[in-house]
């Protein structure tokens, strides 16, 4: 009888004023920063002079360029999903099955994880530097003139290289958890290696493939930065179209409708990933990684081929980053390759406001996001109160939605009274906290599932109230999740753009937005210098946080550390 449980849960919460207070405040925040903007967005998109209508949607669908953007988005996402999954599989297979040494693996990981902690235009800039009209590869190596680096192919390539690490992180533990003994046994039964690969390894990894594909699909669907730079006019996609509708034509309603067209595929993919595939792969993810002896199930020549292919990809990623560093330190890439500090001088003079604003916002958002993450995670995992499941779902909404939708929703909702926040730093902080803390929430839930409830009961029986128990017992034990959540909010505050591009103002801007401006002004040098700066800062902060997590040295810190990058 749910109703009785509901009533008794409610009564219990009412007797615990602190718990009641925290739940109330969290719900108010979730209502204000998740439900309200989304509702306003829907209302704006589906109303016309006070009455509800789907006319704007039909008009939008009738527009051939919007329809094209919708299908282009799906085609791009599917392509990136397939290619990224394959690339991730290649890396995962190499990492787990070729017996590569520890140091090589670290190098491989570094190359694969770089794109995840980089600002959004990094790969795009590098592709222009390589394949543009004056590109290093297209012009200098191959001697072409006036080639175009814009369009579907380069966008798909850039997104694949940016997002395949997600597939790698998803697939690696799954393949590592497939017991090599299973493959060895099939081998000893006389199966050929190829046959074993086809009939044992691949089928066991299928849930992992599905999961990786869906995650990549969602990432590409939501990606705003790459297509904005690389897709060009010939290949419009939804996030960029929505952005142009708002910033170019000041058509809020049109932007809202376009962003909502993103919602349907994004929601489908999210639900599939979370409730169908995500659950199936969860258990295997906890398997030990890298603990097993090397296997003979892959032929020596195949091992060599895998390593070579992987190294090639890793090298081209590193090449992109080297190019970025190089471009940031020469006068004009491709035209005048003499060394200069000029671009760095620019970003540390003209760029200072953006750097200052970004760091202030990141540093405010970081502790708030960390605290919010552990609080919500704790409540979801440990407390019984009416509306607990609803809180879990609502807290994930902004995370699951493409940034474009969140950004436009915030812009529309907080532009006018009663709650006018646009133009300030507060709205950007709120956007980051509610969009990127779910990583901290999940890390907290995962950690708490490994900490016996009796510890909190013991504290309670010793006279501590719920607040004191949280502070004295729970918080120290979930500190790793706190730091992981904190780190993700910081990284994303430094690198995200898709939502916050709509929220910056004259008084508060962001590095990522400045990079975009530089790109559109063709000031590629400062753009590269900014990107290098962001990568260095993020790397430094991640290193400090990893050191803290290593210091905490609880059994679960490792899992939290992984989620730092996986988020």
């Amino acid at each position, binding site marked *: *009888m*749910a109703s*009785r*449980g509901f009533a*008794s849960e409610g*009564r*219990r919460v009412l*007797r*615990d004023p602190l718990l009641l207070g925290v739940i109330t405040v969290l719900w108010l925040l979730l209502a204000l920063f998740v439900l309200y903007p989304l509702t306003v967005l829907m209302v704006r998109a589906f109303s016309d002079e006070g009455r509800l209508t789907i006319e704007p949607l039909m008009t939008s669908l009738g527009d051939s360029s919007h329809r094209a953007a919708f299908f282009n988005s799906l085609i791009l996402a599917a392509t990136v999903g397939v290619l990224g999954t394959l690339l991730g599989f290649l890396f995962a297979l190499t990492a787990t099955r070729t017996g590569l040494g520890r140091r090589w693996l670290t190098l491989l990981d570094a190359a694969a994880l770089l794109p995840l902690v980089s600002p959004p235009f990094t790969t795009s800039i590098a592709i222009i530097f390589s394949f543009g009209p004056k590109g290093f590869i297209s012009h200098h190596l191959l001697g072409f003139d006036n080639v175009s680096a814009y369009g579907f192919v380069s966008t798909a390539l850039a997104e694949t290289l940016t997002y395949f690490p997600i597939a790698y992180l998803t697939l690696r533990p799954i393949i590592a958890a497939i017991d090599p003994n299973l493959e060895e046994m099939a081998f000893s039964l006389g199966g050929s290696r190829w046959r074993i690969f086809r009939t044992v390894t691949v089928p066991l990894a299928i849930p992992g493939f599905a999961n990786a594909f869906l995650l990549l699909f969602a990432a590409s669907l939501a990606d705003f930065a790459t297509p904005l730079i690389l897709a060009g006019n010939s290949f419009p996609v939804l996030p960029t179209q929505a952005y142009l509708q708002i910033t170019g034509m000041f058509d809020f309603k049109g932007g809202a409708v376009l962003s909502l067209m993103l919602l349907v595929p994004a929601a489908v993919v999210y639900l599939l990933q979370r409730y169908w595939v995500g659950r199936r792969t969860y258990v295997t993810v906890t398997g030990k990684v890298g603990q097993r002896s090397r296997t003979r199930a892959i032929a020596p020549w195949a091992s060599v081929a895998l390593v070579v292919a992987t190294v090639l990809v890793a090298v081209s990623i590193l090449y992109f980053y080297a190019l970025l560093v190089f471009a940031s330190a020469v006068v004009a890439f491709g035209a005048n390759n003499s060394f200069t500090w000029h671009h760095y001088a620019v970003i540390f003079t003209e760029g200072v406001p953006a750097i200052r604003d970004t760091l202030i916002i990141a540093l405010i958002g970081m502790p708030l996001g960390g605290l919010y993450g552990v609080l919500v995670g704790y409540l979801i995992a440990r407390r019984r109160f009416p509306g607990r499941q609803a809180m879990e779902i609502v807290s994930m909404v902004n995370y699951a939605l493409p940034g474009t939708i969140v950004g436009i929703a915030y812009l529309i909702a907080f532009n006018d009274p009663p709650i006018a926040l646009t133009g300030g730093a507060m709205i950007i902080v709120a956007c980051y906290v509610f969009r990127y803390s779910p990583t901290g929430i999940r890390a907290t839930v995962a950690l708490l599932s490994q900490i*016996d409830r*009796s*510890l909190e*009961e*013991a*504290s*309670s*029986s*010793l*006279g*501590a*109230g719920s607040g*004191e*128990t949280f502070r*004295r*017992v729970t918080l*120290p*034990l979930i500190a790793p999740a706190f730091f992981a959540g904190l780190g993700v909010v910081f990284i994303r505050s430094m690198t995200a753009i898709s939502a916050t591009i709509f929220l910056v103002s004259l008084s508060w801007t962001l590095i990522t937005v400045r990079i975009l401006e530089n790109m559109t002004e063709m000031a590629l040098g400062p753009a590269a210098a900014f990107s290098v700066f962001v990568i260095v800062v993020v790397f430094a902060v991640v290193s400090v946080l990893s050191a803290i997590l290593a210091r905490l040295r*609880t059994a679960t810190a490792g899992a939290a550390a992984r989620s730092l990058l996986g988020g």
Partner: protein
Amino acid sequence: MAPISIRLDRVSKRFDHTVKGEVYAVRDVSLSVAEGELLTLLGPSGCGKSTTLRMIAGFEEPDEGTISIDGRDVTHVLPNRRGIGFMFQNYALFPHLSVFENVAYGLRVQRKGTTEIAHAVGKVLELVGLANYERQQPHQLSGGEQQRVALARAVVFQPKVLLFDEPLSNLDAKLRVEMREEIRSLQKRVGITTVYVTHDQEEAMAISDRIAVMERGEVVQDGTAQDLYYSPATEFVARFIGRTNIVEARVVSPAEVEIEGLRITFASGLPVGQMVRLVVRPEMIELQPAAAGAPDSAVITHHTFLGEKTDYQVKLGALSLQATASDHYRKPVLKIGQTVAVHFHAQGIHVLK
């Protein structure tokens, strides 16, 4: 008799079961524990004994009934306001705190002064035999030591009531016996009202003033170990406490019953001709070597020599009986297949209602 410290009045707790729907974990349980008494809740797993204990602690809330401690209704009081020491099966020591800080926890929560805390913690650690362990971390301790720290932590703030949830089940057999004596002697010294949960009947009998046997969420009998052993209320209690024979018999006269054609002098107080079921403990059956073919003869089918005693299985007509003899230092052990005369010691026999 000492005043009542804990009282449960018609307490029930229901759970939603995915298959069975709503099920009672605890049903209509009424219990009282006198001040300074140690009551054990005994029963197989899933009988509701832990849920009952957790309701006394306040970790669970009853759906019906009331719970009071020292005359105060605490049914809806949060656990941190009940003043209860709780011992968990897994000890639940705080892994991030030292032994000292673990024990000091309750005092810190009460905002006691530093010197007072140091004094109290030192004293209680000495009491449980862990003086000089203050700086150790929980993971550096053995199971028994962790147990003692948990005990020290539970008693240091002088709670009105102490609750134990299967505290010994993670220890090896020898330590288990040692620890239960320590818990019992500590409980007596401090004179604290205690409720103790276990599924081990021997542990229950060793440690308790009184035992409440639970089955499927209900208390089926509540009494001393001797009450339960010699006058079990149900077949379940009879079988759960010690080993037993449940024997079908017929009342043949006011002073006699008949078992498998064997007449035994036993005043059942029941009308002649009625069928009764008797609880006969193995040590109430005495076996004597006898000539084959005697009317009261039975055959040994199995025997286990255990040193201090020997367990026998004998066949009496269609009945298979357990018997125990503990005098083999002066009598030979009977052999399998040997014919024996069965003698029932009537004064120990109990009639099941």
